């Protein structure tokens, strides 16, 4: 009975295994079993969702285009933003360059054109001091974008640090920080910004002289300080809220059990998990910073002359608004375009990176 193995081959209920089932798979069969879809990370998924959103994608390209133009156009454009074209050392001032309409030329330029030279046209005309207006708008865009970007980074760093500490430490530390946040949050921000920057401007003017920072200008630095002092609170609140819920997760407990210190847990576990919240609110912070900068520039508290920003260009344009309304229109259009695209892109980013979030 024991030797009769061959008889049992075809019996269905037999415990005997069919050896054919254990032949190594051929390459073809292996190929068939491979996962059809490559594994995707959270980031990749989100980018895919973002690209599906047409409005956000178009806005992203507009922002990239404007940024690239703001960075590279001043490099090859023949005029400088602070160069009064009619003023050439050793010669009498040529007033024909002042207040040119778009695509008009100064006297000296007309002569050069007659000789057959090609002159780069003043696409947007020139201003009252004979400076090429196009390059001033481009340069102003560069300043406004840079201010918006760096101000948001400052807000991000301060808000993230304080929010993470408050959320992770809890207890008394959290209580004290959050009460301070409450008070700063309920301050009328714009009034405080105006007050602080008008005073800082005066205070900094003296101390900055001769240092590297004087090149940036006291006004922009005071703007950064004000942003650092006032605008971190919403970011801190956001991060704290996230961390409060995240720190109850099992992996934090596991990490603590393994002997990790607070700093390690915050940096390696909690902050990376707040990533989408951080990205979204930073993206939405940039347009609001640009907004604030242009508002302050409009009141004369923005960048130091002769440096232009979109707000100061608009404010200067008001003086000659009867004769040269287009000078207001150009910076106005650029500001609105930047703020609009950044806002819509930020909204798209929020939808893509945080699908759970109900808006």
């Amino acid at each position: 009975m024991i030797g009769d193995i061959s008889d049992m081959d075809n019996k269905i209920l037999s415990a005997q295994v069919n050896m054919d089932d254990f032949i190594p798979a051929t390459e073809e069969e292996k190929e068939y079993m491979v996962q059809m879809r490559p594994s995707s990370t959270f980031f990749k998924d989100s980018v895919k969702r973002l690209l599906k959103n047409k409005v956000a994608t178009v806005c992203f390209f507009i922002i990239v285009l404007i940024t690239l133009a703001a960075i590279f156009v001043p490099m090859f454009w023949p005029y400088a933003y602070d160069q009064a074209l009619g003023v050439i050392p050793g010669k009498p001032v040529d007033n024909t360059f002042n207040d040119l309409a778009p695509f008009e030329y100064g006297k000296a330029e007309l002569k050069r054109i007659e000789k057959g030279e090609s002159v780069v046209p003043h696409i947007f005309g020139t201003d009252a001091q004979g400076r090429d207006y196009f390059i001033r708008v481009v340069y102003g865009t560069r300043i406004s974008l840079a201010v918006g970007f760096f101000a948001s980074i400052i807000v991000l760093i301060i808000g993230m640090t304080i929010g993470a500490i408050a959320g992770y430490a809890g207890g008394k530390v959290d209580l004290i920080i959050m009460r301070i946040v409450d008070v700063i949050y309920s301050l009328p921000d714009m009034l405080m910004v105006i007050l602080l920057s008008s005073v800082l401007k005066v205070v900094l003017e003296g101390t900055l002289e001769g240092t590297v920072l004087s090149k940036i200008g006291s006004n922009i630095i005071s703007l950064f300080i004000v942003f650092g002092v006032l605008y971190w609170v919403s970011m801190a609140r956001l991060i704290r809220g996230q961390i409060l819920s995240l720190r109850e997760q099992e992996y934090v407990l596991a990490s603590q059990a393994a002997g990790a210190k607070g700093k390690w847990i915050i940096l390696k576990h909690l902050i990376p998990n707040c990533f989408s919240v951080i990205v979204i609110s930073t993206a939405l912070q940039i347009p609001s910073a640009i907004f604030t900068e242009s508002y302050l520039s409009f009141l004369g508290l923005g960048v130091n002359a002769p440096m232009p920003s979109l707000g100061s260009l608009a404010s200067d344009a008001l003086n000659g608004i009867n004769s040269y309304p287009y000078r207001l229109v150009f910076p106005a259009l650029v500001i609105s375009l930047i703020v609009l695209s950044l806002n819509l892109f930020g909204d798209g980013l929020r939808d893509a990176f945080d699908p759970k979030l109900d808006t």
Partner: protein
Amino acid sequence: MNTKTLMYILKRILLAAVTVWVVITVTFFVMHAIPGGPFVGEKAVTAAVQAAMEAKYGLDKPLGEQYLTYLGDIVRLDFGPSLKSRGREVSDMIFDGMRTSFKLGIIAAFIALIFGVVFGAIAALRRNKIIDRIIMIITTAFVSMPSFIMGSLLLVVFSIKLGWLPANGAQKNGLILPIITLSLYPMAYITRLTRSSMLEVLGQDYIRTAKAKGVSGVKIIFGHALKNSLIPVITYFGPMLAYIVTGSLVVEQIFAVPGIGRAFVNSITGRDYPLVMGTTIVLATLIVIMNLIGDIMYKIVDPRITLE
């Protein structure tokens, strides 16, 4: 009203009081950080005013004592004389300006509220139809346009190109353009707010019940939907007034309206520090109180909302 709501309101009032105190204190110490102090003006200040200032603020005394005198003065709404406008008290200048600015702000707020709610409701009821699309595009544009640009563009079009309305706010009908400028942003915002909350309310069960009972469309909208969808609009009450106050700074500048906003901006560019301090404190207190009222109203109107 239960005790919990009462506690919340008390807490909220305390926070507002602390905020106002912080504003006053920050203003004082920031102003004293200016080299020479805020009351030591330039050549334009006469010796007599200078002497009066020194006597009034006790500039020779230690900073702490000066701070206490200053607090006492503020409680009595006494901000001292202006450095630039000879012989005028800052508090008089502020209250003069307030009269114009109040008119401007309140009318703008009403326009924003009424048109915002109407447009928002229309957009929600005609969701994804062409009129909804148009309203959304226009409001998106208005929301992303800074008030100073909006004001300047309106100025160019309506008073310079078309000549319909005066460019100067002190003239007859001169407040029309500033009011429109100030109301456009909050109006657009309220439109979007009303639209989204109305859409949410329209999806609720009790609306379906009303429809099933055979209640007419008009009754559903006015009797059930509108009231509940206005709750988020109330939260915007405080921020809207804050926006109108800060917006009025530039709008009054553009249209040369003789209001408090223009006084504030001029005091900053002219370094008239007593006026800067006075206007900052008055405007900030105003904003804080408005936010307080907005929050309390919200809490009372919607008992479902639990705030920490």
